[in-house]
């Protein structure tokens, strides 16, 4: 009998989504790296929410205001009590990022479609190019204590100096400082390469299978607890380049493994690698 995830309800199967396609209490949200994917075809009835165009403020490097978030939810027919299921490309990186952003605003019931867009397409499940429209809702932003899941550079510096667990989920070459960006992703520049002192490198991809689904709880424990030595009650900070890959690791630790105190440093390497006079470690 396989052991289950600590919070299994946050992960739904493609089968579950199919059974809830017309459930008014459920809204399926696609969030991708490539913005055209949704328009090429999507889970019927799903809406697109773009991490960049919708959730990020276009002027300040931050997320949108609560007021704007309420507008986006209203437009998507999402109420405060709607079950929102995110899915997307790249093994759900951006879906996890969108989920994390929804949690910043305190949306209660957020879930991930296990396997994401790839799994749905690979299994030839129904797709649609029709963009649905839903009656606008009167969305009330619950709000949250963002410090529970988000951390800023000063706190990360203190965390690093205190020798507390830091997870760098970028590729090994970004971690060692050999590369300033992931292979093939030169868009977000940093002036220095390397990692935050004390960080351990667990590339995000080690949490997912080739078919886009998450690894089993046994495999995740072997990786994060046995290999890296993290404990579920540790205060863990995860980061990557802009905070998207680390949203996936954050999701894995917090929900699948039940870590009680894990935060995403969304400033990530794009901030740290450009900061003046912060310590940087190089090499493996």
């Amino acid at each position: 009998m396989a052991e289950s995830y600590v919070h299994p309800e946050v992960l739904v199967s493609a089968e579950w989504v199919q059974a809830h396609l017309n459930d008014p209490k459920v809204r399926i949200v696609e969030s991708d790296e490539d913005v055209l994917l949704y328009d090429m075809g999507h889970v019927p009835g799903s809406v697109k929410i773009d991490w960049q165009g919708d959730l990020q403020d276009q002027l300040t490097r931050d997320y949108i205001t609560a007021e704007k978030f309420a507008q986006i939810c209203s437009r998507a027919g999402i109420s405060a009590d709607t079950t929102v299921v995110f899915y997307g490309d790249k093994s759900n990186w951006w879906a996890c990022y969108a989920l994390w952003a929804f949690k910043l605003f305190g949306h209660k019931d957020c879930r991930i479609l296990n396997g994401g867009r790839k799994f749905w397409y690979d299994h030839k499940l129904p797709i649609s190019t029709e963009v649905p429209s839903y009656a606008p809702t009167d969305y009330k932003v619950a709000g949250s204590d963002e410090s529970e899941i988000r951390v800023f550079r000063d706190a990360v510096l203190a965390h690093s100096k205190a020798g507390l667990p830091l997870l760098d989920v970028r590729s090994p070459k970004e971690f060692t400082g050999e590369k300033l960006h992931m292979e093939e992703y030169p868009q977000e520049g940093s002036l220095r390469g390397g990692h935050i002192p004390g960080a351990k490198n667990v590339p995000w991809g080690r949490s997912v299978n080739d078919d886009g689904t998450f690894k089993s709880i046994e495999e995740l424990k072997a990786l994060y607890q046995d290999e890296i030595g993290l404990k579920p009650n540790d205060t863990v900070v995860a980061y990557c380049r802009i905070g998207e890959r680390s949203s996936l690791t954050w999701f894995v630790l917090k929900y699948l493994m039940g870590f009680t105190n894990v935060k995403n440093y969304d400033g990530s390497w794009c901030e740290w690698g450009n900061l003046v006079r912060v310590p940087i470690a190089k090499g493996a």
Partner: protein
Amino acid sequence: MSTMPPALEAITKELGSADRQERIELLIDFAKSLPPLPEELAAFKDAAHRVEECQSPVYLFVRVSPDQIVEFHADAPIEAPTVRGFVAILVEGLTGATAQQVLAVGDDLVERIGLPEILGMLRVRGLHGILRRIKAEVARAMIANDLAPPTAAAEHSSRTQ
């Protein structure tokens, strides 16, 4: 302006005058209609033909004939429709153009076809890299052509594909 290859000029006009949703649909149409690589090139999808600047695997094959006409093939996965669509625009817009015309294409092409508006600033940077790479390959092939007699040059450029 007038030096732009006519096919690319036409595409630029069409996309430039489209509204946001039309532009998304046009880009998807381009992505879907990218012709497959000719068989003799498909075997050479290796690092030498891969565009480093681009986040998705994009492969470019550029040939310049002795009379300086550009032949251009490319491939990118349908799972990355943005990149594939842009590559398809270039294949349609630049095939048959002269090497000089390709080199004269402005670096602001991505902006002129209105892609930042639908993709956002972060996502368009990789696309600039594709155009840069094509121009570099064309320039390299021209040098090769000038330095060698036409037949040898043609053979050289096909060997280096």
